[in-house]
C-alpha cells in the first residue's frame, strides 16, 4: 500500500484533517545549540563525579553478569587480558581498530605468547570474507567502547570503520575495554549525547548502536537461566583507570 494511502487511513481513524498542524513535542525542538548545551552539562556532571560513576558501573555491571576488572594501569589491563587468553587456551584473538589499542600494547603481548591476533577491519588488508571467517572462529573478541552507562552496567558500541558489529558478538568470550572518560551516569545521558552526535553529523547517527549489559542469556526452557545461548558465553569488562 502506498504511504499516502496508508497515512490517510490513519488520519481517518484519528478524525484528523489532512495538513493538520505538526505535533508540538519538546524533545524534538531542541536545536543544535541547545542540545550542545545539554551535552556540555552532561560531560561536566560526569567529569565531576567520575570516580563515583566508575564504582557504580563496576557494581551494576557485576550484577548484570559481567566479570569486572578495574586495571590500575594500561600495563595491568594487558596482563589481565593475556592471562585470560592463556586461561581460555585461546589460539586466536580478534580485536577492533578502536583508538584504545594505541594506548594498550595488547597485540605484542598476545603474539609473544603465540596467540594469533587479527584486527577486524578492512584496513588490516584482509578481505571481507576472510575477516568474517576469522571472527567466527576466534576464541576471544576484544573491543574498545564508545560509552559506558553506570545505571545499567552497559557498554555501548557504535559500528563504524574499524569497529564491526560481529567482533563483540561471535567469539565465545567478549572483553570490553572501558576508559574513564567514557563512563556516564544514565540512559538519558547516553541518548542526549547520541542526539548531539546526530545533529552534528547532519542527521546520520550511524547504522548501528549496541548496548551490551551482560552475557547472552535465556530462560526459555522451564524459566531456568542459561548464559551463552547465541552471543558470548562470558563477558569481561576491563576498566583502565589511568
Amino acid at each position, binding site marked *: 500500500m502506498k*504511504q499516502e*494511502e*496508508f*497515512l490517510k*487511513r*490513519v488520519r481517518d*481513524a*484519528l*478524525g484528523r484533517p489532512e495538513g*493538520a498542524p505538526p*505535533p508540538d*513535542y519538546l*524533545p*524534538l525542538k531542541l536545536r543544535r545549540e541547545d542540545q550542545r548545551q545539554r551535552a556540555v552539562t552532561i560531560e561536566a556532571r560526569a567529569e565531576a563525579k567520575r570516580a563515583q560513576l566508575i564504582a557504580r558501573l563496576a557494581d*551494576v555491571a557485576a*550484577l*548484570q*553478569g559481567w566479570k569486572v576488572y578495574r586495571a590500575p594501569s594500561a600495563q595491568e589491563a594487558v596482563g589481565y587480558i593475556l592471562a585470560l587468553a592463556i586461561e581460555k587456551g585461546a589460539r586466536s584473538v580478534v580485536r577492533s581498530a578502536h583508538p584504545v589499542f594505541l594506548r594498550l600494547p595488547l597485540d605484542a603481548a598476545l603474539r609473544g605468547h603465540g596467540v594469533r591476533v587479527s584486527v577486524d*577491519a*578492512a584496513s588490516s588488508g584482509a578481505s*571481507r570474507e576472510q575477516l568474517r571467517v576469522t571472527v567466527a572462529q576466534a576464541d576471544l573478541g576484544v573491543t574498545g567502547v564508545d560509552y559506558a552507562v553506570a545505571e545499567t*552496567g*552497559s557498554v555501548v558500541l557504535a*559500528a563504524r*570503520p*574499524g569497529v*564491526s*558489529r*560481529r567482533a563483540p*558478538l561471535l567469539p565465545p568470550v567478549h572483553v570490553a575495554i572501558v576508559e574513564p572518560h567514557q563512563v556516564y551516569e544514565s*540512559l538519558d545521558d*547516553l*541518548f542526549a549525547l*547520541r*542526539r548531539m552526535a546526530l545533529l552534528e553529523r547532519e542527521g*546520520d*547517527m*550511524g*547504522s*548501528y*548502536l*549496541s*548496548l*551490551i*549489559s*551482560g*552475557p*547472552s*542469556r*535465556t530462560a*526459555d*526452557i*522451564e*524459566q*531456568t537461566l542459561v548464559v*551463552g*545461548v*547465541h*552471543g*558470548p558465553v562470558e563477558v569481561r569488562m576491563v576498566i583502565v583507570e589511568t
Partner: protein
Amino acid sequence: MQPHTQQFPKLAAQALANPQVQAALAGLKTGFDQARQHAIGEITPEDWEHLRDRAREIKRHTLEHLDSYLALLAENVRRNGGSVHFAKDAQEATATVLEIAHRNGVKLVVKGKSMVSEEMALNRVLESAGVETVETDLGEYIIQLAGETPFHIVAPAIHKSKEEVAALFQRKLGALERADIPSLTRTARETLRQKFLQADMGISGVNFAVAETGTVCIVTNEGNGRMSTSLPRIHVAVMGMEKVVPALEDLGVFYRLLPRAATGQRATSYFTLVSGPRRAADEDGPEQFHLVILDNGRGRLLADPDLREALYCIRCAACLNICPVYRKVGGHAYGWVYPGPIGAVVTPVMVGLPKARDLPFASTLCGACRDVCPLKIDIPRMLLTLRHRVAEGPPAQRKASWYEGLGFRLWGRVMASEQAMARARRVALFVQRPFARGGHIRRLHLPPLSRWTRKRDLPALPERSFHEIWEKDLRTSPPVVPLSQRARGTGE
C-alpha cells in the same frame, strides 16, 4: 495466523486438564512476577510512577499524531538508506516480505522473535514459497520445531518441560548427548550458529521505532536479535504501526520500563538500535534494510476512543504473569497471537468481535493487570466495554442464552423489591433443602445449574438472613426507614 478464538472454552478446558501445562503456569508467579517486583523495588516508587506516567503521555501524544510521526519515521529511514513498506493487513505485509526475498534470491531466513510476524503467519508463507525460515529465539525455535504457536509473549515455550524439548530435539536434530537444560541450549546454539552464518536474510521485530532518527530498536537477552540484524546481507524489520516514538530521548523512558516489567531486569543483555543498512565504510552489516509497517486492525483500535489505550502496550507480558485466568488456561486457549488480559482486548478488535466474543469474559475483572501494567493500561475497563458490546450486539452474536437473559431480568425484579426478595428467600430455602449439606450445595443435576457445581460448591442460603439477624439481635439504634418507603432518588 488463522484465529481459532471461537474455541476458547474447549481449549481452556484442555489446558486445565493438562497437569504439565498447570505446572509450567504455576511457575509464572514465582518466576517472572517476583522478578518484576524485585526489579521495581530497586528504584523508588516515585520514580517508577513518574516513568509510567511519562510513558503514557508519550504514547498518548504519539498516537494522537500517528500520521505525522509515521511520515517522519519513513522519511528518516529512507534518509538512512533504508526502504519503507506500508501494509494494511497481514497478507499485504507477508507479500512484501516474500517479494523482497524473491527479488534477492533468498534461500535461508533467520528470524528474531516478532509477535507481528506471528500475525502474518510469515514462517508458513515463506516456507511454502521454498524459503527456509528458522526461528532463532530459543523459545520460538522450540515451538517452531514442535509446530505450535507461542504460549507466552516473552517466553513462548514456557509450557514445555525439558524432557519434551529433549525428545523434540532428538527427533528433529538427531542424537543428543545429554538432556539437561544447558546441554539443550548448547545444541540449539550450535545448530543455529550455522544458520546465522549462512542466512541471506534476517527478519526482526521492533520494540520501538524512533521517528526523529529513523531507528528501530530491538530488546533481547539471547543475542539472536543482534545476529539476525548483523550477519545476513538483508535485514527486514516488521512492526505494528503503534511502535513509533517521537524522539531518541523517549527510549530512556521505555527501556527502563520494558525489561523490568517483562523479566525483572534493570537492563536486558542487549538493546540494539538499527538505523538503516551498513554505511559504505562500515566493517560489516546488511547491505539492505527494509522496514515493514503494519496496520492489520490497529486502525480500528486507534479509531475507537474507548479502546485506543490498548495500543499503548509494549508487550511486556506482565499482565499475563499476574492474571488468575491466564495462569490457569495458558496462552493457547486464547486462540490467536496475543493471549492474556491484553490479548482479550486486542484480539476481538483485530480478528472481529463475533469470532472472539468469549475472550472479554475470560477475566475476573480483579484489576491486577491494570496495576502491574507499566503503561497503566485500563484493561478491565476495556473488557467491560467489549462485554457490553457483546451483550448489546445483534442477537446472533450475543453470548447469553435466552434463559440467562430471562434469569437476570427476574433477578433484577426480585432484587429491587424487599418483599419480593423475602418471598424468594423463603422459596429458595424450601427448594434447596434436599441439596444443601453442611452449608454448601455440592452438586446440582439440572442443566444449566449443573455447570456451576461441576467445578465448585455453591454456598447454600443460610436459614436466617443478615437482615433478620440485624433486626432481631444486633440493632441498637432506631430502625431506618425501609428502602421501599423512601423518596425516589435518595434510596442509595
